[in-house]
């Protein structure tokens, strides 16, 4: 069985290699090859899962040591995989959703001449993501960690001819690199503290380190998580990442890659358990981001960017839950999985809408689409109900548990976190209802002539009819709707399935060592509050966007709205603090290097031997004289040694 883990990772890796190196000969079949490799990986994942379920809970973890990677005196890194319940959960999510999105992309990227390469990158992503969750040590995890970053870079910038896409890709990579500095330093700290960075060595004995050491490691891991999972203060790249094709947004920037930070923190639970200060930092980051993302999501008129804000916010919930410690880990992962279903579904739905609307992304130019795209409407609607936590659907169960756990943290901290989580739930209901109403209900704001002003914002995308032509909204082909339907099933039933008999909790127990927290208020009251918050959010949104007609051009809006449209000024801040400062710095250094460092050296040279005049001679072609003078130097050496011997 262990050997199958290699196949799990190897299949998509091979696929990426074949598709990217294969060249144009594979253009016609490329996407099907990509699907074959992705499906293989999923099938192997299922086999491993079936095998795992058949074993006792404590004996389920598999280990596969492939080879010694970096063997140096005192330092040992291996290429070895570990498949336990936590990794298994991710494997099924990644390969399952990944395969569905491969199928979806066949239709979505149909008109793109570089479709083969797109599938190559998708396969590369799957392989890297699987390495990330299967690695048995932090250094190999790092390989997957940056590998998904690379795939994300390539896919955000897939339409490279668009400067905005190329810029967004670069930005994503750079911001992630800042987070990677954190992961690097965390690994180095583990090495100096424990002499190793293998999970099996560091984690069980994490408690033998001092609280200070664990806090330092924990904070560095948090920095890494902030980068990958778009948490404040490293959140700014995710909105721009929507430049990528929509299937990419669904798979990488919603369902899987961006949740890697949650995985990292949960995996490193033993470190955080011993570092309360780091945990406080984690919950703070989570709580701030969940509100931040939600506010941004309220203001965006671009459907994908609204969903991106939502992703940020939902991951904020997960990070917060993970920061709660053993009372929260399992719920962080549970919300991660349900979110994987409904958010991927929502993005695919958004893609389907764009597909039928000439790649228009401005929701103010949608309206009344439910009649034209019934399947998209129903699947998107189910995803919507799931994310706002409509009782009975998956988001209800997973979010409710997190809010409960937040209160159970205890003390003032518990009250604050719980209240923030409730507030977040209300805002979530508001902005998602807004998306729903703007897109599928109300008047048709697209009919007739689309506003030519908007053309610069429009995604030219995949060779669709020229921008500016009147859209003819239509339902998407089966290859796109079937994945949406399947994901909708997940959005509806996953939560119930996981919660009955505490199935999910028991499944992850050997990894997360769950503890029941004591909430100051009863579970029933928490649920009541959550549902109330949701109803309030929905009602306000309905009052604002459902009852009255929506203007096709956004009103000026309040100060907060305008700030939120600009992502709460994050880019303005980054621009001033880093981009401008950095550009002055580099320009200053270039000047300095030329005038001062180089100038001083040249000046010294001229000073020492009147070299400058000789330099002119050299430039006139008397270079050989220098060769002679050099051998002259050797002669001096010989003479000097002779003299030395004579003296001695």
């Amino acid at each position, binding site marked *: 069985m262990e050997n199958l883990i290699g196949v799990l990772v190897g299949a998509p890796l091979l696929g990426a290699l074949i598709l990217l190196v294969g060249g144009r000969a594979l253009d016609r079949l490329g996407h099907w090859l990509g699907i074959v490799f992705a499906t293989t990986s999923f099938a192997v994942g299922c086999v491993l899962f079936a095998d795992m379920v058949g074993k006792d809970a404590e004996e389920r973890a598999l280990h596969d040591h492939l080879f010694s990677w970096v063997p140096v005196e005192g330092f040992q890194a291996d290429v070895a995989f570990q498949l336990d319940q936590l990794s298994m959960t991710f494997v099924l999510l990644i390969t399952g959703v990944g395969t569905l999105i491969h199928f979806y992309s066949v239709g979505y990227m149909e008109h793109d001449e570089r479709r083969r390469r797109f599938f190559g990158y998708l396969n590369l992503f799957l392989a890297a993501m699987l390495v990330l969750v299967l690695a048995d040590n932090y250094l190999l995890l790092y390989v997957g960690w940056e*590998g998904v970053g690379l795939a994300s870079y390539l896919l955000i910038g897939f339409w490279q001819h668009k400067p905005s896409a190329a810029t967004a890709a670069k930005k994503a990579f750079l911001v992630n690199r800042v987070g990677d500095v954190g992961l690097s330093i965390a690994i180095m700290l583990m090495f100096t503290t424990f002499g190793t960075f293998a999970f099996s060595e560091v984690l069980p004995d994490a408690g033998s380190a001092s609280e200070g050491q664990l806090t330092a490691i924990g904070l560095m891991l948090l920095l890494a998580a902030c980068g990958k999972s778009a948490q404040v203060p490293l959140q700014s790249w995710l909105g721009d990442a929507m430049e990528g094709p929509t299937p990419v947004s669904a798979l990488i920037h919603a369902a899987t890659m961006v949740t890697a930070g949650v995985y990292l923190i949960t995996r490193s639970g033993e470190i955080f358990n011993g570092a309360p200060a780091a945990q406080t930092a984690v919950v703070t980051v989570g709580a701030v981001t969940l509100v931040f993302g939600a506010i941004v999501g309220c203001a965006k008129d671009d459907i994908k960017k609204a969903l991106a804000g939502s992703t940020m916010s939902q991951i904020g919930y997960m990070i917060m839950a993970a920061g709660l410690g053993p009372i929260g880990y399992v719920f962080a992962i549970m919300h991660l999985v349900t979110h994987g279903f409904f958010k991927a579904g929502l993005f695919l739905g958004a893609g389907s809408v764009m597909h039928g609307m000439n790649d228009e992304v401005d929701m103010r130019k949608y309206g009344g689409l439910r009649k034209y795209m019934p399947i998209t409407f129903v699947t998107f609607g189910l995803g919507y109900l799931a994310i706002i936590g409509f009782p009975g659907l998956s988001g209800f169960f997973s979010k409710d548990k997190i809010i409960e756990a937040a209160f159970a943290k205890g003390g003032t901290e518990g009250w604050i976190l719980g209240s923030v989580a409730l507030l977040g739930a209300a805002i979530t209901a508001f902005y998602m209802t807004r998306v729903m109403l703007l897109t599928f209900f109300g008047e048709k704001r697209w009919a007739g002539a689309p506003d030519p002003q908007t053309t610069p914002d429009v995604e030219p995308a995949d060779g669709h009819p020229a921008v500016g032509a009147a859209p003819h909204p239509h339902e998407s082909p089966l290859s796109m709707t079937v994945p949406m339907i399947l994901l909708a099933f997940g959005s509806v039933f996953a939560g119930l399935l996981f919660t009955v008999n505490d199935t999910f909790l028991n499944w992850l127990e050997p990894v997360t*060592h769950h503890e029941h927290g004591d909430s100051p208020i009863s579970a029933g009251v928490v649920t009541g509050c959550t549902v109330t918050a949701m109803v309030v959010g929905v009602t306000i949104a309905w009052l604002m966007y459902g009852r009255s007609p929506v203007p096709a051009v956004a009103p000026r809006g309040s100060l907060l709205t305008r700030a939120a449209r600009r992502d709460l000024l994050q880019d303005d801040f980054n621009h001033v603090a880093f981009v401008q400062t950095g550009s002055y710095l580099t320009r200053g250094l270039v000047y300095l290097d030329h005038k001062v460092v180089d100038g001083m050296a040249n000046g010294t040279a001229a000073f020492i031997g009147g070299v400058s005049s000789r330099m002119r001679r050299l430039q006139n072609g008397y270079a050989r004289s220098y060769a002679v003078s050099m051998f002259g130097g050797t002669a001096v050496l010989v003479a000097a*040694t002779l003299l030395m*011997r004579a003296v001695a």
Partner: protein
Amino acid sequence: MSFLLTATAATPAVGAVVTAAVPAGRRTAAKWTALVFSLATLVLAGTALGRFDPDGDRYQLTESHTWIKEFGVRYELGVDGIAVALISLTALLIPFVIAAGWNDADPPSSPAGGKTPAGAETTSRWRPTQGFFALILMVEAMVVMSFAATDVFLFYIFFEAMLIPMYFLIGGFGDRAGGHDEAEAAKQRSYAAVKFLLYNLLGGLVMLAAVVGLYAVTADQLGTGTFSLQEILAAREAGRLDISDNGEKALFLGFFFAFAIKAPLWPLHTWLPNAMGESTAPVAVLITAVVDKVGTFAMLRWCLQLFPEASDWATPVILVLAAISILYGALLAVGQRDIKRLIAYASISHFGFIILGIFAMTSQGQNGATLYMVNHGISTAALMLVAGFLISRRGSRLIADFGGVQKVAPVLAGTFLVGGLATLSLPGLAPFVSEFLVLVGTFSRYKALGVVATVGIVFGALYVLLLYQRTMTGPVKAEVEGMPDLKAREIAVVAPLIALLLFLGVYPKPVLNVIDPAVGHTLSDVNKTDPKPDIDLDAVHKQRKADHGAEGAEGGHAEAAGTEAAGTESGAETHGGDK
């Protein structure tokens, strides 16, 4: 006694002579001659690598002959794991350099643009093609000798002598500047070549003084002066040789100065951007990937082994200079407008990493530094050679003259990206392993410095991605339209380098196995041991087992987890109290 090392160095030297002798009209024959000789050298170097036993003697394949008896100069060769790895790298890269520069030295077939290039007269006299390839082989021979020499004087001769062919390679052969002012280009080239020569000569002269000084000291204390590394080490071991504190420091500085110019270390780096910018891409690769490695290699072999105490004394300053190099080089790379100068500054940053790793004086640091030399050679070769292909297509080195290349030449863009990703040390590609080893090796002794150097990885990503974005993405520029993709010869140059980057990224073990024991020897020369981890996990394991036995761990799993958590807490407390 074996002659393998002599043969490895002599083959390219003979090749140089033969290539230079090919008649003027037979340019293609000259190219093939050079390629064949470089491949023969590769075979010999490969044999040396194969014959080298990592767990055997420190220096192997040794040769020793008296040369100039009067001055104690010996013809002594020998390689440790570090040297044999670098000789292999050199021999590996030269065929790629030759193949990439296949047409670089051909005389212009027809006067482009109607104007006769300024260098035309010289080129006819020089038989440029023959000269170009002969000089490359000459450099190879001298570099191999520098790596193999275990006699200070012998090393010095080749360390200095390689400046001559390099000077002519930089000054005599430049890019075809399509449409640009040829006379101006020739002037720039000439300036770069002279600057290269003067900087390195200055270093060489200072080193010469130190070499003489070393001879004087040995002559004084041992009776007979010697340049032999083995003899000097043996004498010091036996206590017969004890260089005074200040004397050792002065000698160390003399050696280090020369190596720091060659490496190059901030603030002695300014010759490199000129030299790499003005020379053709294959020569730029020769400079940064091959010749400069002699500088960092020499720090390991000569500075640390001959002057261990002075090395220790100078370490803090060198480490700070290395850290400055890392950040400074990277930031300047960000600010460059010229592709080749950008890569040159990136190399300065990378040399900072190498020197940092060497002087961190840990197993990880020095293993990383040595592996870094190998990986940097390959990755820079890949990036620079593709850049050269790109530049020759457009006749311009300016980043702003490109845009949208990926649309018209996707293979070129793809290989350029892989080279760039290797340069920014993406995990999965070879440079990541070496860079991480350097960082972790530095961090384990100097935490703050390790953190500062780690920040360098962000800037590394910045200059690579900016370069890629500005040249390859965006709308296709009019001048780029119709740019041909890589030709078969060019793919044959780049593909093996990329394959090697991937292979060594996933499986660096074969190289590390060769390097690791040699690094162990070097560290024991300088009396350094690796810092121990704060926590001895073995002891913790034993303790836990003992505790487990005492408690009789028959309780349920949940209970066991509970007690463990409790133990954890108390453990943390006691540790906290210690601090």
